[in-house]
C-alpha cells in the first residue's frame, strides 16, 4: 500500500503554472528521487506535500488521510517531515538546540529529548559540533543539520530537498552513505536532487518533472536511457556513471550563503 499519494496536483502562481496535474505514489520503505531542471516545480511540489502551499487542484493523501488544509506542523507530527533546499538553521541556537527542537516533537521531556538529539548528532556526524551556533556552520554541516533536525522528529517519511547541492565529491559520498543508513532503518524517503551520482546510487525509482509536468517515471537504468529525459534534463552523452555533479548545464545551482 502506498504511504503517500499525490493525486492530480496543480499549482499556479499568477499566470505561471508551477505544477500541472502531477500524480504519483510513494510506497512504505521506498526511496524515490524527483529530478528535473531548475524551475520544473520540484520544490513547489514539496511545499504542497509538506503543507506550506495549498494546491489549486488535486490532493495529497498520507497514510490514507487527506492532507488538504492540514498545517505543516501537523503533517510533521503525523510523521512526514521535510528539509529546506536553502538551509535554515536556527542561527543563534547551538547545533544541539537546533536538533532538540525536532526531538521535542517526539518526546516532550527535555531530558529525554536531549538523549534523542545526542543519538541523532552521533548518527549524522555532528556530535563534535554540538555546541557551535547554527550560523557558524559550514555548508556541508548545515546540510547535515537540516537532515539531523528532520530525523529528530522521528519521521516515517523524509522529504529531502537538495541535500547534496554545493557539496564536494567526498562530502557527497559521505552523505550518500548517511542517507542509505537512514533508509535502511525503515524510513521512507522522497529525494529532490540534481546530483546524479547521488540519485543513481540511492534511488529505487525516479520521477522526472519538466515544466511542472511529470514526463517520465521508472527505474534509474530506464530513466538515463529515456530520450525525453535526456532531451529535457540530462543532456546528450550522459551515462550516469562518471559524473560527480549535476548534469553539466545545471551545475552551479545557487545555494544559500
Amino acid at each position, binding site marked *: 500500500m502506498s504511504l503517500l499519494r499525490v493525486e492530480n496536483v496543480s499549482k499556479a502562481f499568477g499566470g505561471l503554472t508551477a505544477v500541472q496535474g502531477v500524480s504519483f505514489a510513494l510506497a512504505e520503505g521506498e526511496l524515490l528521487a524527483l529530478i528535473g531542471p531548475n524551475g520544473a516545480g520540484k520544490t513547489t511540489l514539496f511545499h504542497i506535500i*509538506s503543507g*506550506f502551499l495549498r494546491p489549486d487542484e488535486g490532493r495529497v493523501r498520507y497514510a490514507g488521510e487527506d492532507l488538504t488544509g492540514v*498545517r*505543516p*506542523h*501537523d503533517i*510533521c*507530527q503525523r510523521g512526514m*517531515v*521535510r*528539509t*529546506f533546499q536553502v538551509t*535554515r*538553521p*536556527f*542561527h*543563534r*541556537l547551538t547545533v544541539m*538546540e537546533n536538533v*532538540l*527542537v*525536532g526531538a*521535542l*516533537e517526539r518526546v*516532550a521531556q*527535555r531530558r529525554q*529529548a536531549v538523549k534523542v538529539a545526542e543519538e541523532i548528532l552521533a548518527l549524522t556526524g555532528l556530535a563534535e559540533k554540538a555546541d557551535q551556533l*547554527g550560523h557558524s556552520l559550514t555548508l556541508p554541516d548545515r546540510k547535515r543539520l537540516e537532515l539531523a*533536525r*528532520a530525523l*529528530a*522528529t522521528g519521521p516515517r517519511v523524509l522529504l529531502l530537498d537538495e541535500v547534496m547541492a554545493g557539496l564536494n565529491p567526498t562530502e557527497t559520498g559521505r552523505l550518500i552513505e548517511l542517507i542509505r543508513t537512514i533508509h535502511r532503518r525503515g524510513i521512507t524517503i522522497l529525494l529532490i536532487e540534481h546530483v546524479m551520482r547521488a540519485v543513481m546510487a540511492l534511488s529505487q525509482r525516479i520521477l522526472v518533472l519538466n515544466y511542472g509536468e511529470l514526463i517520465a517515471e521508472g527505474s534509474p537504468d530506464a530513466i538515463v536511457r529515456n530520450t525525453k529525459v535526456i532531451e529535457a534534463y540530462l543532456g546528450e552523452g550522459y551515462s550516469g556513471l562518471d559524473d560527480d555533479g549535476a548534469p553539466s548545464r545545471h551545475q552551479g545551482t545557487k545555494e544559500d550563503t
Partner: protein
Amino acid sequence: MILRIVIGLAAGAALLLLPFVASSVWQNLLITTFYFAYLGQAWNVLGGYAGQLSLGHAAFFSIGAYTSVVLHTHLGLSPWVGMLAGAALAAVVSQGIGFLGFRFGLRGFYFILLTLAVAEILRLVALHLPILGGYTGLFINFTPNPWQFQFKGKIPYYFVALSFLGLASGVVWLIERSKFGVYLVAIREDEDAAEALGVDTFRYKMLAYAVSAALTALGGTFYAYYQFYLQPNTVLSMHHSVDIMIRPIVGGSGTILGPILGSFLLELLGEFSRTYFATGAAGLYVVIYGLLLIVVVLFLPRGVYPTLLGWVRRALARHA
C-alpha cells in the same frame, strides 16, 4: 560553586538591606528600576523569546491598571484580587490581537503596527469613557491599608516591586528550561523551519502573548497604587509602550538578565543625565539620554548582557 553561593547570599542581603539605608530618592529609583525590569521581563516573553515585537504593551498595562482601580473604587474589591481580573482580561484581549495578527500571518513591521494601533484605540476609548475618568483620569484616595495595595512609605513598595520582578524572572526561568521556551526561540529564529519541525507556531505565539499580556497587566496595578493616578495620555501613550520595551532591548532581549540589566542601566543613565544636565539648557538631559541610548544600540546591537557575556567568555578562553 561556593563562590556563586557567596555572591548570591551577598546580593540577597544587599537587596534586603538596601531600602533601609537608601534615601527617599534612591528608594524611588530602585522601585522604578525593579518595576520597569518587571515590565521588561513580561515584554521579553513575547518580544525577546518569541521574537514578536509589540509596540503596544501599554494596552495590557492599562487594562490591568484600570480594571483593578475600577473594581476597587466601584465594588470595593481589593486590588490584590482585582489585578488578577485585570491580568485575565489582558490575556483575553491579547488573544484577540494575536488571532488577527498571527492567523493572517502578520510579521515584522505589520505586527508592530497592529499592536500600536490597538493601544491607540484603547487610549481613545479611555479618553472618552466616563467610568475611566476620561481626559482627567482616575485618582485613587490614599488609605494606608496593605490589603488595599496601599502602603505608608516606600519600603513596602520596594519589596512588592522586588517580588514582582522575582516572580516574572521565575516565570521566564521556567519557560527557558521548558519545551515551550525552546519552541519560542525556534519561532523567533525561523518560523517556517520551526513549523516544518512540528512546532505549532500559531499556538505557541498565542500562548506567549497571553503570558506576556497577563504579567504586564499585573504591573499596571502596581503602577496605579504606587502613583495613585491614571491618565490615558500617560499610561496608554506610545511613549509608555517604548518605555516598556526599551529596557529588554538595551539589556539583551531573549535573555533573563537582559531586562534587569537594561533597567538598571537606563535608570542610572536617566538619573545621571537629570542630575548633571538638568540645569542650564532645558531638556538637555533628554538629549544626552537619547545619545547614550543610540551609542548602546549602535555598538551593542544584541544588547548589553550578551555582549558582556561574550567578552567574559573570550577573556576566560584566552586565560584557559
